[in-house]
């Protein structure tokens, strides 16, 4: 009986972890392909085709993680779903419009007449940018617990700039890994440009978060936790510096072309851990814990059965598809 009760209490934690991991995978994976989308307007027509081909086999599976994450929010934490999405009403709409434009542009650009291709390419760029900026704003609002006051929108606006920069850097790192020759050269250049604003944004956000959120401040600046926690910003810093250093080496064009991308994933994972530490056990910081927001235990169990069947399958096919499409993107036509 006791074990049952504790399992029931653990259910929301299980779903929180599932949701968090879905969101993390979404941000990392859609991050690089949104980044590639935002770099499109800087490329020649031939390069655009290669860039699209490089993300072609993945981007749509990447986006389904968002559906899974929001789906879990909706079905496992219905009370939070309403609260969070109500607060983020406008940016959610803009993000959805961006993602829709982008999704259909991807498809239409190869099926439409040649004369319309440029229009769809522009929409692809515009949709990617709109979605990224909206996500940055939403992240900013979410971290600060939807606070009101002059400083909160400024904080959110800063993240709305920084997150797209991080995506662009991811996108460039992806292209360094997946392409060769002239395009790779340009991707290196793009990465160098995006690095500074991305790091600047990250530093600013790290300093501002404790300032706008007393909850976060208390958690981070308490002894002895601060000593253990210091590992997160330190490792992030080292990874970012390593990325910058690599961009100037010859090796990054050849044998370690994958390293900047992997290091950036690490940065995202570290950032996610920091965020998780700041927020848990809240779903909405300072307002709603996961236990308050969760559906009833019987309902969660029903969903858990489905999740246990599908999540391994999803992970399996993701691994499989990255393995199948590993290596440089050649003339693969995505149509």
């Amino acid at each position, binding site marked *: 009986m006791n074990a049952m009760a504790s399992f029931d209490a653990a259910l929301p934690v299980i779903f929180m972890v599932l949701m968090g991991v879905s969101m993390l995978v979404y941000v990392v994976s859609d991050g690089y392909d949104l980044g590639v989308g935002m770099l499109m307007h800087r490329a020649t027509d031939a390069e655009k085709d290669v860039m699209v081909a490089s993300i072609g086999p993945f981007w749509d599976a990447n*986006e389904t993680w968002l559906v899974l994450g929001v789906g879990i929010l909706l079905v496992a934490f219905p009370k939070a779903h309403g609260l969070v999405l109500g607060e983020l009403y406008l940016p959610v709409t803009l993000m959805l419009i961006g993602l829709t434009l982008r999704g*259909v542009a991807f498809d239409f650009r190869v*099926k439409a007449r040649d004369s319309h291709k440029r229009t769809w390419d522009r929409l692809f760029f515009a949709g990617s940018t709109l979605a990224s900026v909206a996500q940055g704003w939403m992240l900013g609002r979410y971290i600060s617990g939807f606070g009101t006051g002059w400083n909160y929108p400024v904080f959110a606006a800063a993240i709305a700039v920084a997150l797209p920069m991080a995506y662009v850097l991811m996108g460039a790192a992806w292209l360094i890994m997946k392409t060769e020759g002239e395009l790779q050269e340009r991707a290196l250049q793009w990465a160098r440009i995006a690095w500074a604003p991305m790091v600047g944004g990250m530093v600013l956000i790290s300093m501002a978060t404790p300032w706008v959120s007393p909850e976060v401040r208390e958690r981070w600046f308490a002894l002895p936790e601060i000593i253990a926690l210091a590992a997160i910003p330190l490792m992030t810093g080292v990874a970012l510096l390593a990325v910058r250093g690599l961009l100037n080496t010859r090796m990054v064009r050849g044998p370690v072309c994958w390293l900047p991308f992997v290091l950036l994933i690490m940065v995202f994972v570290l950032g996610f851990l920091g965020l998780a530490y700041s927020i848990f056990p809240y779903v909405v910081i300072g307002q709603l814990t996961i236990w308050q927001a969760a559906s009833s235990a*019987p309902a969660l169990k029903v969903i858990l059965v489905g999740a246990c069947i599908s999540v391994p*399958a999803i992970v399996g096919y993701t691994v499989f598809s990255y393995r*199948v499409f590993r290596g440089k993107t050649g003339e*693969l036509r995505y149509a």
Partner: protein
Amino acid sequence: MDALILARMQFAANITFHILFPTISIALGWLLLFFRWRWLHIRGGGDGASAQGWLDAYRFWTKVFALTFALGVVSGITMSFQFGTNWPGFMERVGNVAGPLLGYEVLTAFFLEAGFLGVMLFGHGKVGERVHLMSTFMVAFGTTLSAFWILALNSWMQTPAGHEIVDGEFHVASWLAVIFNPSFPYRFAHMLLASALTCAFLLIGLSSWQVLRGVGQRSAARVMRVGLTLAAVLIPVQIVVGDMHGLNTLEHQPAKIAAMEGVWDTERGAPLLLFAIPDAAARRNHFEIAIPNGASLILTHKADGEIRGLNDFQGAHPPPLPMFFAFRLMVGMGMLMLAASWLGWWLYRRTKWQPALLPRALLWLFAGMTFSGWVATVAGWYVTEIGRQPYIVYGLVRTADVVSKVPSAMIGLTLALYVALYLALIVAYVAVLKYMAEKPDEVLATEAAEQAATPPGAITSPIVEGGRA
């Protein structure tokens, strides 16, 4: 306008846009399986030209499926957000019932994306014929299963059953009773048939267009025959199922029927109104044209059967005006589809299935009816969804009680954005279908180039990739 009506309009805009695409992809999946099977079967028999026609049809319509599926996915993502943005109270109140059903819908769609669609779209020639046929089957089965879950939820909202309410929050007492609630079997059958008919007219329409333009000869004749036969056979079935659905609605949601038929006062031997303008303010109809006893006859199968009127449900019935006309639009479109498909099938058979010999006026009529299924389906959904008002869960939870508190100006602005986007996308979708129909060889050539260029080691591409391809 107040936030409630704007939130409803916005959600309506989104589900209207969304349903267009699943309506096609549910049945198209099965049709692809059929084309695929015909090709395999006839090729075995040694009729090369005929087999090639089926293969062309399969490959062309796979492209249509991919495009349609992609639009269904992007509009579906929006829906998963709008449950929360527009109706935050809905999941708070009935999340324990709706959550798992929606969850299974998402997971089913996910599972489908996980493997089979990618193999179906890109794996042809890379995996064995049997595996490929199996993948096509799984895609068709998966889309149907998705429809199963979502219609179970929708039907539960219409005719809730199997739940118990504790402290205002819904809990599930019996999942079987929740899923197989009273209206579910009828709605599910009605929707699957609607999907089949929508597809049938899409096949007929695009093939007619190809014949008019003189392209795609190998496949158009076969596809048109499939479409006409399917439509001619299924429309009568749909009429019977629709009638049963209506009787079921009369039993469980009498106010909906009263609004559909424009009946204000409870009466025996209610007339069937061919035309009227129901006036909700005056609580009467203007300009009635009626067939005496018709409504009673249709709905109760007795000339003097009793139909309860809207006045029995004051303050708890839907607005009759949109219901009345949406219902007639659906039925009218169904009748037109019946006439067109029967006439078309008979004439087509007389030409010995040579579409070029059909009267051009008929081909133009078919081309004009390419999306007639959309009109009937959307009109039908308006009847059923507006007909549930003012409740979101019929008789138990009012829509007004769960609406979001977002300012109405904000909802109005985003509504305008969504509508502009959706209209543009519908235009683009139809334009691309037309372009593809006119240039089928180019469309198929792209596919060949793409397959030739797939990197070594790519045995299958297990992503929905193709969903957007």
